[in-house]
Protein backbone atom coordinates (compact mmCIF):
# COMPACT_ATOMS: atom_id res chain seq x y z
CA UNK A 1 0.00 0.00 0.00
CA UNK A 2 1.27 3.44 -0.93
CA UNK A 3 2.25 5.98 1.69
CA UNK A 4 0.78 9.41 1.18
CA UNK A 5 2.59 12.76 1.09
CA UNK A 6 0.85 16.14 1.07
CA UNK A 7 2.68 19.08 -0.52
CA UNK A 8 1.93 22.51 0.99
CA UNK A 9 3.70 25.09 -1.13
CA UNK A 10 2.62 28.14 -3.13
CA UNK A 11 4.78 27.04 -6.07
CA UNK A 12 3.16 24.66 -8.58
CA UNK A 13 6.72 23.70 -9.54
CA UNK A 14 7.34 22.09 -6.15
CA UNK A 15 4.22 19.95 -6.51
CA UNK A 16 5.42 18.82 -9.95
CA UNK A 17 8.97 18.21 -8.73
CA UNK A 18 7.85 16.18 -5.70
CA UNK A 19 5.48 14.12 -7.87
CA UNK A 20 8.23 13.45 -10.40
CA UNK A 21 10.78 12.63 -7.70
CA UNK A 22 8.46 9.99 -6.24
CA UNK A 23 7.54 8.25 -9.49
CA UNK A 24 8.11 4.51 -9.19
CA UNK A 25 8.36 4.60 -5.39
CA UNK A 26 5.86 3.49 -2.76
CA UNK A 27 4.97 7.13 -2.13
CA UNK A 28 1.90 8.77 -3.60
CA UNK A 29 1.27 12.52 -3.67
CA UNK A 30 -2.12 12.87 -1.98
CA UNK A 31 -2.65 16.53 -2.68
CA UNK A 32 -1.33 20.06 -2.97
CA UNK A 33 -2.20 23.05 -0.82
CA UNK A 34 -1.23 26.40 -2.35
CA UNK A 35 -1.09 28.17 1.02
CA UNK A 36 -1.09 27.25 4.69
CA UNK A 37 -4.86 27.44 5.09
CA UNK A 38 -5.60 25.32 2.01
CA UNK A 39 -2.89 22.92 3.14
CA UNK A 40 -4.60 22.38 6.48
CA UNK A 41 -7.88 21.69 4.71
CA UNK A 42 -6.11 19.18 2.43
CA UNK A 43 -4.55 17.49 5.46
CA UNK A 44 -7.94 17.07 7.16
CA UNK A 45 -9.25 15.60 3.89
CA UNK A 46 -6.32 13.28 3.11
CA UNK A 47 -4.68 12.55 6.49
CA UNK A 48 -1.41 12.17 4.60
CA UNK A 49 1.41 10.22 6.28
CA UNK A 50 3.94 13.02 5.78
CA UNK A 51 3.61 16.70 4.85
CA UNK A 52 6.20 18.77 2.99
CA UNK A 53 5.69 22.35 4.14
CA UNK A 54 7.03 25.56 2.64
CA UNK A 55 7.58 28.60 4.87
CA UNK A 56 6.90 31.74 2.83
CA UNK A 57 3.35 31.48 1.50
CA UNK A 58 0.37 33.80 1.11
CA UNK A 59 -2.69 33.74 3.41
CA UNK A 60 -0.98 31.64 6.10
CA UNK A 61 2.77 30.99 6.27
CA UNK A 62 4.30 27.60 6.98
CA UNK A 63 5.13 28.19 10.64
CA UNK A 64 1.58 29.25 11.45
CA UNK A 65 0.23 26.30 9.47
CA UNK A 66 2.54 23.92 11.36
CA UNK A 67 1.18 25.17 14.71
CA UNK A 68 -2.37 24.46 13.58
CA UNK A 69 -1.43 21.07 12.11
CA UNK A 70 0.10 20.03 15.45
CA UNK A 71 -3.12 21.11 17.17
CA UNK A 72 -5.11 18.89 14.80
CA UNK A 73 -2.70 15.97 15.19
CA UNK A 74 0.21 16.24 17.65
CA UNK A 75 1.90 13.31 15.86
CA UNK A 76 1.71 14.83 12.37
CA UNK A 77 4.96 14.33 10.44
CA UNK A 78 6.22 17.49 8.79
CA UNK A 79 9.26 18.13 6.62
CA UNK A 80 10.01 21.84 6.30
CA UNK A 81 10.91 22.15 2.61
CA UNK A 82 12.04 25.69 2.00
CA UNK A 83 14.50 27.84 0.07
CA UNK A 84 15.19 29.62 3.38
CA UNK A 85 17.09 27.86 6.11
CA UNK A 86 18.77 30.37 8.42
CA UNK A 87 19.31 29.47 12.07
CA UNK A 88 16.70 31.95 13.33
CA UNK A 89 14.06 30.32 11.15
CA UNK A 90 15.15 26.76 11.96
CA UNK A 91 15.00 27.51 15.68
CA UNK A 92 11.48 28.91 15.31
CA UNK A 93 10.48 25.75 13.44
CA UNK A 94 12.08 23.46 16.06
CA UNK A 95 10.25 25.32 18.84
CA UNK A 96 6.95 24.59 17.10
CA UNK A 97 7.86 20.90 16.87
CA UNK A 98 9.14 20.44 13.34
CA UNK A 99 11.94 17.87 13.32
CA UNK A 100 12.73 17.35 9.66
CA UNK A 101 14.24 19.88 7.26
CA UNK A 102 15.10 19.85 3.56
CA UNK A 103 16.45 22.79 1.61
CA UNK A 104 15.45 23.50 -1.99
CA UNK A 105 16.60 22.46 -4.52
CA UNK A 106 16.44 18.75 -3.78
CA UNK A 107 17.36 15.63 -5.67
CA UNK A 108 14.86 12.72 -5.84
CA UNK A 109 17.02 10.42 -3.69
CA UNK A 110 17.38 13.08 -0.99
CA UNK A 111 13.63 13.66 -0.84
CA UNK A 112 12.92 9.92 -0.71
CA UNK A 113 15.42 9.48 2.14
CA UNK A 114 13.94 12.42 4.05
CA UNK A 115 10.41 11.04 3.64
CA UNK A 116 11.54 7.65 4.93
CA UNK A 117 13.22 9.35 7.92
CA UNK A 118 10.08 11.33 8.75
CA UNK A 119 7.77 8.32 8.31
CA UNK A 120 9.65 6.13 10.82
Amino acid at each position, binding site marked *: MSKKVLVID*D*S*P*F*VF*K*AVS*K*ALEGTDWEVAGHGLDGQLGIEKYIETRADVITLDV*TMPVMDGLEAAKKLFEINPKVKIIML*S*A*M*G*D*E*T*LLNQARTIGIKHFL*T*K*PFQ*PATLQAKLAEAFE
Partner: protein
Amino acid sequence: MENTTEVLESKFDTLFGLAKRSFEEIMLEVTGEAIQADGEFSIQPENRLSLSIIIGISGNTNGRILLNTSVDYGKNIAVAMNFGDPLENEEDLHVYLAEFANMFCGRAATHINNAFGKREIWISPPAIFSAKDLDIVTPNVSSMKAYYECSLGKFIVDMGFSENTYDEF
Protein backbone atom coordinates in the same frame (compact mmCIF):
# COMPACT_ATOMS: atom_id res chain seq x y z
CA MET B 1 35.37 56.34 13.72
CA GLU B 2 34.77 54.90 10.27
CA ASN B 3 32.95 56.95 7.72
CA THR B 4 29.30 55.83 7.46
CA THR B 5 29.62 55.50 3.69
CA GLU B 6 32.60 53.17 4.10
CA VAL B 7 30.72 51.04 6.62
CA LEU B 8 27.76 50.72 4.26
CA GLU B 9 30.00 49.93 1.27
CA SER B 10 31.70 47.21 3.29
CA LYS B 11 28.33 45.79 4.33
CA PHE B 12 27.04 45.83 0.75
CA ASP B 13 30.24 44.09 -0.41
CA THR B 14 29.57 41.36 2.15
CA LEU B 15 25.94 41.00 1.05
CA PHE B 16 26.96 40.84 -2.60
CA GLY B 17 29.63 38.22 -1.89
CA LEU B 18 27.08 36.04 -0.11
CA ALA B 19 24.58 36.47 -2.96
CA LYS B 20 27.20 35.44 -5.53
CA ARG B 21 28.11 32.38 -3.45
CA SER B 22 24.39 31.50 -3.29
CA PHE B 23 23.94 31.71 -7.06
CA GLU B 24 26.99 29.50 -7.60
CA GLU B 25 25.71 26.94 -5.07
CA ILE B 26 22.22 26.80 -6.56
CA MET B 27 23.58 26.48 -10.12
CA LEU B 28 25.80 23.60 -8.96
CA GLU B 29 22.92 21.86 -7.18
CA VAL B 30 20.44 22.32 -10.05
CA THR B 31 22.70 21.81 -13.07
CA GLY B 32 25.71 19.97 -11.63
CA GLU B 33 28.03 22.59 -13.14
CA ALA B 34 30.47 24.60 -11.01
CA ILE B 35 30.59 28.21 -12.16
CA GLN B 36 32.51 31.35 -11.25
CA ALA B 37 31.86 34.99 -12.02
CA ASP B 38 34.16 36.23 -14.76
CA GLY B 39 34.43 39.16 -17.15
CA GLU B 40 31.68 41.44 -18.25
CA PHE B 41 29.18 41.14 -21.10
CA SER B 42 25.72 42.19 -22.14
CA ILE B 43 22.84 39.88 -22.99
CA GLN B 44 21.16 41.20 -26.08
CA PRO B 45 20.07 38.10 -27.94
CA GLU B 46 19.22 38.61 -31.58
CA ASN B 47 15.66 37.52 -32.29
CA ARG B 48 15.40 36.17 -28.78
CA LEU B 49 13.62 37.59 -25.79
CA SER B 50 15.50 38.91 -22.81
CA LEU B 51 14.32 37.61 -19.48
CA SER B 52 14.67 39.30 -16.08
CA ILE B 53 13.59 37.95 -12.72
CA ILE B 54 13.32 40.40 -9.83
CA ILE B 55 13.09 39.53 -6.16
CA GLY B 56 12.66 42.27 -3.59
CA ILE B 57 14.65 42.42 -0.36
CA SER B 58 13.25 43.96 2.80
CA GLY B 59 14.52 44.20 6.37
CA ASN B 60 17.43 46.14 7.83
CA THR B 61 18.69 46.35 4.26
CA ASN B 62 16.32 47.06 1.40
CA GLY B 63 16.92 46.36 -2.25
CA ARG B 64 16.43 43.83 -4.98
CA ILE B 65 18.16 40.95 -6.70
CA LEU B 66 17.85 40.94 -10.48
CA LEU B 67 18.78 37.90 -12.56
CA ASN B 68 19.20 38.76 -16.24
CA THR B 69 19.38 36.15 -18.98
CA SER B 70 17.51 35.22 -22.16
CA VAL B 71 14.39 33.10 -22.57
CA ASP B 72 16.45 30.39 -24.29
CA TYR B 73 18.98 30.25 -21.46
CA GLY B 74 16.10 30.28 -18.98
CA LYS B 75 14.66 27.21 -20.71
CA ASN B 76 17.96 25.40 -20.14
CA ILE B 77 17.65 26.08 -16.40
CA ALA B 78 14.04 24.87 -16.38
CA VAL B 79 15.00 21.58 -18.08
CA ALA B 80 17.75 21.05 -15.49
CA MET B 81 15.19 21.69 -12.73
CA ASN B 82 12.92 19.11 -14.37
CA PHE B 83 15.65 16.52 -13.70
CA GLY B 84 16.82 16.77 -17.33
CA ASP B 85 13.46 16.18 -19.03
CA PRO B 86 11.89 18.72 -21.43
CA LEU B 87 9.01 20.73 -20.00
CA GLU B 88 5.62 19.16 -20.69
CA ASN B 89 4.17 22.60 -21.27
CA GLU B 90 6.01 25.72 -22.50
CA GLU B 91 3.80 27.81 -20.23
CA ASP B 92 5.47 26.17 -17.25
CA LEU B 93 8.68 28.07 -17.99
CA HIS B 94 7.82 31.03 -15.78
CA VAL B 95 6.72 28.74 -12.94
CA TYR B 96 10.08 26.97 -13.03
CA LEU B 97 12.10 30.17 -13.28
CA ALA B 98 10.17 31.83 -10.48
CA GLU B 99 11.06 28.91 -8.24
CA PHE B 100 14.69 29.00 -9.41
CA ALA B 101 14.88 32.67 -8.40
CA ASN B 102 13.15 31.86 -5.14
CA MET B 103 15.73 29.15 -4.38
CA PHE B 104 18.64 31.44 -5.26
CA CYS B 105 17.37 34.38 -3.23
CA GLY B 106 16.23 32.13 -0.36
CA ARG B 107 19.75 30.73 -0.18
CA ALA B 108 21.16 34.27 -0.25
CA ALA B 109 18.84 35.31 2.59
CA THR B 110 19.91 32.22 4.53
CA HIS B 111 23.62 32.99 4.22
CA ILE B 112 23.10 36.69 4.94
CA ASN B 113 20.92 36.11 8.00
CA ASN B 114 23.36 33.54 9.37
CA ALA B 115 26.32 35.88 8.76
CA PHE B 116 24.61 38.72 10.59
CA GLY B 117 23.26 36.43 13.34
CA LYS B 118 19.74 37.78 13.01
CA ARG B 119 16.91 38.30 10.54
CA GLU B 120 18.75 40.87 8.42
CA ILE B 121 16.65 40.44 5.28
CA TRP B 122 13.50 38.77 4.01
CA ILE B 123 12.60 38.15 0.39
CA SER B 124 9.41 38.80 -1.56
CA PRO B 125 7.85 36.65 -4.30
CA PRO B 126 9.59 36.91 -7.68
CA ALA B 127 8.38 38.91 -10.67
CA ILE B 128 9.42 37.85 -14.17
CA PHE B 129 9.67 40.06 -17.23
CA SER B 130 10.44 38.96 -20.76
CA ALA B 131 10.59 41.35 -23.69
CA LYS B 132 12.81 42.67 -26.45
CA ASP B 133 15.08 45.59 -25.54
CA LEU B 134 14.15 45.25 -21.90
CA ASP B 135 15.78 47.73 -19.50
CA ILE B 136 15.06 47.68 -15.80
CA VAL B 137 16.21 50.70 -13.82
CA THR B 138 16.25 50.90 -10.04
CA PRO B 139 17.22 54.38 -8.86
CA ASN B 140 18.58 55.11 -5.38
CA VAL B 141 20.28 51.77 -4.83
CA SER B 142 23.96 50.80 -4.88
CA SER B 143 24.15 48.19 -7.61
CA MET B 144 26.78 45.48 -8.15
CA LYS B 145 26.91 42.89 -10.92
CA ALA B 146 28.44 39.45 -11.41
CA TYR B 147 28.69 37.85 -14.85
CA TYR B 148 28.48 34.10 -15.41
CA GLU B 149 28.89 32.15 -18.63
CA CYS B 150 28.49 28.36 -18.58
CA SER B 151 27.22 25.52 -20.76
CA LEU B 152 23.60 26.55 -20.10
CA GLY B 153 24.10 30.14 -21.23
CA LYS B 154 24.85 33.61 -19.91
CA PHE B 155 23.57 34.99 -16.63
CA ILE B 156 24.02 38.34 -14.91
CA VAL B 157 23.33 38.68 -11.19
CA ASP B 158 22.61 42.32 -10.38
CA MET B 159 22.12 43.15 -6.71
CA GLY B 160 21.09 46.58 -5.48
CA PHE B 161 20.94 47.75 -1.87
CA SER B 162 19.92 50.68 0.21
CA GLU B 163 20.01 50.91 3.98
CA ASN B 164 16.59 50.96 5.59
CA THR B 165 15.78 54.45 6.86
CA TYR B 166 12.44 53.72 8.52
CA ASP B 167 13.76 54.98 11.89
CA GLU B 168 13.86 58.46 10.40
CA PHE B 169 10.09 58.55 10.35
